[in-house]
């Protein structure tokens, strides 16, 4: 039952955008999950969102209370080897970003439920247009080196990442939205981000989703590996490149002190030794467990699998500017020949959601779920091949990377399209050879006529919509150029309210189903394995792992 009196009180002093979202929940246009997620994006606090939900007749917020574990444990984690030096500007791999996050913190945290939570920023809000976002910083946060974190540190940290001269890995997120100098200090505890264009999802760009964006001191000299100076609940004890790292509890932490006394990370080059180490009791946690390689642990009674809904996926691109994929009917025929249910149940052991050939995964609140799921349809696929004048089929090379389940996915696609006369030859390369220089003309990834590429998790679909699909996208391996699509994506990114986002998302989804430059077959869950008795481990689908609440029985 709705309590309009309380709702009126809660609406007072809120912006039009915030009240529009509240109305959406009350009218039933926005689900409770969408309300919480989008509300957190607009900077509304979880208690406030809970109050609105309660007044709108949805009951209270789920309890955030957690069982308190036993303090003092040493939690041992198996991680992949960081690919390069641990440097906030340049880290670009799972092992490296896990190290960054052990000591570093972000303005906000994209949690396992894809709901943004305050971290170093207490709150944030956009202007009416969505091109200026103001963040209020938490007071009393200290760096491990001793100084207090203030606006100058935030400005310097973000500017460092937005500066093209630094070749920052975060440029893939900031380019086109945030330039060096556009992050401005208002006072010691307030920062404004002046964007190049409106962006309704901006807080995700400075959240843990942008794993480079930890806040470090303004006077940082580029020597992060020396002392791992951050603000987090753990401080560096020892780091040995290629071998491992250990951290100890930070007793000056601004928040609730960490339960474990220490954490230890051991780097492994392959998943198999990690599995054996977990089974043998040498480690307590495997940070990321690929489904197929980790099938050994999925039913192991001594192991608990932590499964997070993620939007990580493998994109199958087809060069829209080259035969045999110039004709969209051929691309659709290939998409229709794939049995997605079989991929989801068999290849991913049920730990994935079906993809509908657009980046709009089911978990995104803006996804238009009214569109029918594309299913395997060999008859239609054959008809499309005939109509496109390639009824007798053709031969094509699929180039891809040796990573996670991708080689197996490639084989399944090869077998699936055989039935419509397409003879796919596979070229499976190590990641270095596949990505090459990651620029057009010097990359198997960007130049191949057909390929499969791994894409990691993101809290919002902005990067997936832009880099691999926009006409000027830097990762546009399908060489897809469509003015209508570009316009729709610009509109989607600029939209501040959820309903506008949903409306535009639906148009984008329809356009991509028609054009199918890229096949999005499934979005796979992020798995972490923990030994029985180890509790409080909080991974994110971005390969980070928060261990401050971890304990051992």
């Amino acid at each position, binding site marked *: 039952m709705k309590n309009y009196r309380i709702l009126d009180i809660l609406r007072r002093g809120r912006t039009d955008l915030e009240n529009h979202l509240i109305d959406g929940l009350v009218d039933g246009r926005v689900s409770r999950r969408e309300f919480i997620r989008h509300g957190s994006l607009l900077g509304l606090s979880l208690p406030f969102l809970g109050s609105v939900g309660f007044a709108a007749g949805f009951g209270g917020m789920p309890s955030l209370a957690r069982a308190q574990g036993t303090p003092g444990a040493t939690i041992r984690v198996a991680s992949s080897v960081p690919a390069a030096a641990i440097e906030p500007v340049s880290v670009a791999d799972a092992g490296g970003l896990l190290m960054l996050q052990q000591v570093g913190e972000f303005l906000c945290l994209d949690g396992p439920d894809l709901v943004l939570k305050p971290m170093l920023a207490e709150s944030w809000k956009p202007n009416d247009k969505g091109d200026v976002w103001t963040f209020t910083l938490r007071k009393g946060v200290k760096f491990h080196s001793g100084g207090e974190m203030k606006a100058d540190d935030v400005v310097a940290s973000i500017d460092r990442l937005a500066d093209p001269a630094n070749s920052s890995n975060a440029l893939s997120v900031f380019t086109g939205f945030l330039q060096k100098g556009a992050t401005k200090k208002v006072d010691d505890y307030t920062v404004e981000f002046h964007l190049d264009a409106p962006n309704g999802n901006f807080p995700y760009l400075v959240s843990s989703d942008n794993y480079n964006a930890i806040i470090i001191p303004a006077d940082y000299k580029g020597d992060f590996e020396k002392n791992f100076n951050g603000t987090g609940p753990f401080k560096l004890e020892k780091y040995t490149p290629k071998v491992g790292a250990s951290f100890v509890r930070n007793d000056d932490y601004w928040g609730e002190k960490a339960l474990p006394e220490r954490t230890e990370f051991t780097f492994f080059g392959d998943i*198999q030794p990690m599995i054996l180490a977990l089974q043998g009791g040498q480690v307590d946690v495997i940070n990321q467990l690929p489904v*197929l390689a980790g099938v*050994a642990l999925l039913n192991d009674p001594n192991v608990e699998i932590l499964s997070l809904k993620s939007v990580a996926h493998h994109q199958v691109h087809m060069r829209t500017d080259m035969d045999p994929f110039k004709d969209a009917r051929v691309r659709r025929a290939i998409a229709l020949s794939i049995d997605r249910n079989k991929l989801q149940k068999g290849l991913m052991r049920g730990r994935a959601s079906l993809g509908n050939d657009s980046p709009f995964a089911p978990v995104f609140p803006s996804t238009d779920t009214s569109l029918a799921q594309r299913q395997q349809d060999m008859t239609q696929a054959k008809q499309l091949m005939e109509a496109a004048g390639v009824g007798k089929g053709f031969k094509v090379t699929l180039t891809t990377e040796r990573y996670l389940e991708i080689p197996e996915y490639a*084989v399944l696609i*090869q077998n699936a399209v055989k039935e419509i006369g397409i003879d796919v030859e*596979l070229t*499976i390369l190590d990641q270095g050879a596949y990505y090459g220089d990651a620029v057009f003309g010097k990359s198997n990834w960007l130049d191949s006529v057909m390929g499969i590429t791994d894409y990691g998790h993101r809290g919002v679909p902005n990067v997936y919509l832009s880099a691999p699909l926009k006409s000027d996208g830097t990762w546009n391996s399908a060489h897809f150029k469509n003015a209508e699509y570009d316009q729709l994506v610009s509109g989607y990114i600029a939209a501040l309210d959820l309903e506008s986002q949903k409306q535009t998302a639906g148009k984008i989804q329809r356009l991509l189903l028609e054009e199918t430059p890229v096949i999005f077959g499934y979005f796979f869950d992020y798995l972490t394995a923990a030994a029985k008795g180890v509790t409080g481990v909080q991974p994110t689908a971005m390969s980070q792992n928060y261990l401050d609440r971890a304990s051992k029985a």
Partner: protein
Amino acid sequence: MSAIGAKQPELPSSSTRGPVAEVLVSLSLSGSFLTGLVIVAFWVFCALFGEHFTPYDPLADDIINSLMPPSAEHWFGTDQLGRDVFSRVIVGSRDILTVAPLATLLATVAGTTLGLFTGYFRGLVDDIISRVLEAFMAIPVVIVALLAIVALGTSKSTVIIVIGLSFSPIIARTVRSAVLSERELDYVAAAQLRRESALHTMFVEILPNVVPPILVETTVRLGYAIFAVATLSFMGFGIQPPSPDWGLSISSNYGMIAGGFWWTVLFDALAIASLVVGVNLVADGVQGALND
């Protein structure tokens, strides 16, 4: 007529047979050679005709029934894509039995040529070529493979070239040793007196006389080549999925062992082991026959 002076009837003896027949007889009596031959012949037969008697299409996936243990339906179980392991093991000999012999042939041709030159000319030619070969032998096959793949791309041809070139210095060294002793014999001096060209002397006069050590070295190298192909496939070089190649299958499935899915790897490993053992038994037999 004294019995002493009587001409004895000639008994068939080894001395009356030609050298080739001699070797063949010796081989036919060699247990190790015959055992090896049966094993190798079995895998060659599987490579040529295996697909006609496998119970399932070795490439057909059945992902919903993946990782099924050995049963009456699937004798060797199924792999992670639900493919029948027995069918894949049978047909899996094809790639390895194409690549390894071709690589060995390349190594033999290149190694023999180099060995003839270094052994025949000696001096500066020998010093330079031998030092280069020794330096080449110091580089592990995997490193050579990585360099070659960067330069030539991933393919079976690359694997053949990598293994062929890696093994040729070893064969060259064996041939050189044989040539060094041969070139001191009278028939070589006679050829030189007849003003035969160096090429003629090397390839027409000396080469036929150093065939036995080359043959032994080639068969031994074939065993190593099989192992090398399997290793490179395991590391992802050369042979590409969905080939049922044994090394590649082990590489794709070895992660399953820890989960108790041993059948996805064991039978491919046994197949490699049996072929290597078979080739080595043949090599032993050939060596024994040539020494007799």
